């Protein structure tokens, strides 16, 4: 609760002071948190490692961008279309992959991503490697800007921050519904014991496809947001491996299979990388991937000390003990 209020209030003093850069860091935290919550569905609950959701991220970005550039379609409608297309493509591609299990399934998701890269770079319909530029068409006033999903000038970082905040909230609510519903039970059953799950009537292939498609939908929505934020969709950018590794790491660090795990993980990891890459600036260590080394260290520490993530620590017991002492 306090975290939500802090999240809502976070960009306001920065706006007053004019430090919009830190709003952008916040935007990236929220975007990656949202992707992490999406990844948690396939990775955390269904227990299948997916290294290819950036394909859905790219599909979302491209669908909305093409609809906007060619047809002038509203970006929010474009987001809806992108989510639907990405989920359908994901379902079609994933069904045959579910013949594979464990590591082999994980590898096959990488293979799908590798196939997607040359398609993105050469398909003329989406401008190949030249990418798509999204023209600025900001709506009038705050509501108009929101409707056009484009924010100009000094309010740009602020606007995208709150849009990402809202999308993360929607994603969390949907993820909670999935977790508490039949799907959540079936996903976790498949994760814990696939044969056991099939023995009580659960079609493991069907539900794996469901889980991965839900993840795909979240990534597609994130991709649309990113495309309009960047005002361009380049294949190498939207298909960047980081769009799956960062949310995955955030989920693992925060607590895999826990609703808020990815949010906590993103709030820890993303600022580390952003602040490191800016403070190192033009120094001798700049651009050498130092942030990745720090990431590696964080992952190693978490994996060694608490592989189930920070949220799995006995916080309830600790706070009660603190309360008794205080």
């Amino acid at each position, binding site marked *: 609760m306090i975290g939500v209020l802090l999240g809502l209030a976070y960009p306001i003093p920065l706006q007053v002071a004019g430090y919009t850069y830190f709003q952008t860091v916040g935007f990236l935290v929220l975007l990656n948190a949202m992707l992490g919550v999406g990844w948690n569905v396939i990775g955390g609950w269904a227990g299948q490692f997916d290294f290819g959701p950036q394909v859905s991220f790219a599909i979302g970005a491209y669908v909305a961008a093409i609809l906007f550039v060619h047809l002038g379609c509203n970006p929010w409608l474009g987001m809806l279309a992108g989510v639907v297309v990405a989920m359908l493509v994901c379902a079609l591609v994933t069904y045959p992959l579910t013949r594979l299990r464990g590591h082999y399934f994980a590898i096959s998701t990488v293979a799908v991503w590798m196939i997607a890269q040359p398609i993105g770079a050469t398909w003329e319909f989406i401008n190949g490697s030249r990418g798509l530029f999204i023209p600025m068409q900001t709506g009038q006033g705050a509501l108009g800007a929101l409707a056009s999903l484009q924010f100009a000038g000094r309010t740009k970082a602020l606007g995208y921050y709150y849009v990402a905040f809202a999308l993360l909230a929607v994603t969390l609510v949907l993820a909670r519904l999935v977790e508490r519903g039949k799907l959540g039970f079936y996903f976790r059953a498949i994760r*814990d014991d696939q044969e056991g799950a099939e023995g009580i009537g659960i079609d493991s292939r069907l539900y794996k496809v469901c889980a991965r498609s839900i993840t795909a939908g979240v990534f597609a929505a994130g991709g649309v947001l990113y495309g309009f934020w960047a005002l361009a969709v380049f294949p190498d950018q939207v298909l960047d491996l980081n769009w799956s590794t960062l949310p995955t790491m955030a989920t693992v660090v925060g607590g895999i299979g826990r609703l808020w795990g990815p949010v906590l993980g993103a709030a820890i990891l993303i600022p580390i990388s952003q602040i490191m890459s800016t403070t190192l600036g033009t120094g001798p260590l700049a651009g050498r991937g130092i942030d990745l080394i720090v990431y590696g260290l964080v992952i190693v520490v978490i994996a060694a000390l608490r592989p189930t993530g920070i949220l799995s620590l006995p916080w309830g017991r600790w706070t009660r003990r603190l309360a008794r002492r205080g």
Partner: protein
Amino acid sequence: MAPLLELHGVTKRFGGLVANKDVSLALEAGEIVGLIGPNGAGKTTLFNCLTGYMHPDEGRIVFGGVDITRARPERVSRLGMARTWQLVRTFGRMTALENVVCGALAHTNRIGVARARALRLLDFTGLASREDVPAATLTLADKKRLEIARALATEPRLLLLDEAMSGLTPTETAAAVDLVRRIHAELGLTLCVVEHVMEVVMPLSGRVVVLDYGEKIAEGTPAEVVRNEQVIKAYLGAHYRGRD
């Protein structure tokens, strides 16, 4: 009335090894059938073929009038055949209650309905006090009970128990036998029980089928089977001769 389950000449090979050889068998609704045989006789393979985890190379399996020879496990389950495993397959990171809820969701999409049904079954299997415990931390006896509760939650007509009593203490075994009896009497299920402990399977079963090297070598009431020379030689040992 046609039998609930019919096997016609079921053969399953693993390379050169014949795990089940021309097994024909019929289970009538309402009976308890014991399936016995030495290690490697093909009992678990037969269960795997019945429940769709493996498919026989030859022969046919008909359950409730439906040919399930090549059906997938989830279809077999939905047709009303449930099973437990020799090595338990509970959902370790879910609580006992959640395990059974998963089974109950086979017939409803509403968590509340499934939950109510799961609570009744935890009570029936004597696990009511353990509902919030993660399945991985239960004792073996409780895990086996939980598997039975989860299987019952799918509302089966036929329940296959694969060594539901092996590895248990005598007290636990007695409780498990009692549970099997109650499943038969109170829920009216047909049961097929794979078991090694003769003292358990003989008084429990109305009929016993003996497998040896994948073949059915005998079939009959417990009293008939223990007097069968071939069974004594293959499995029971000389000390069983002459006992009732």
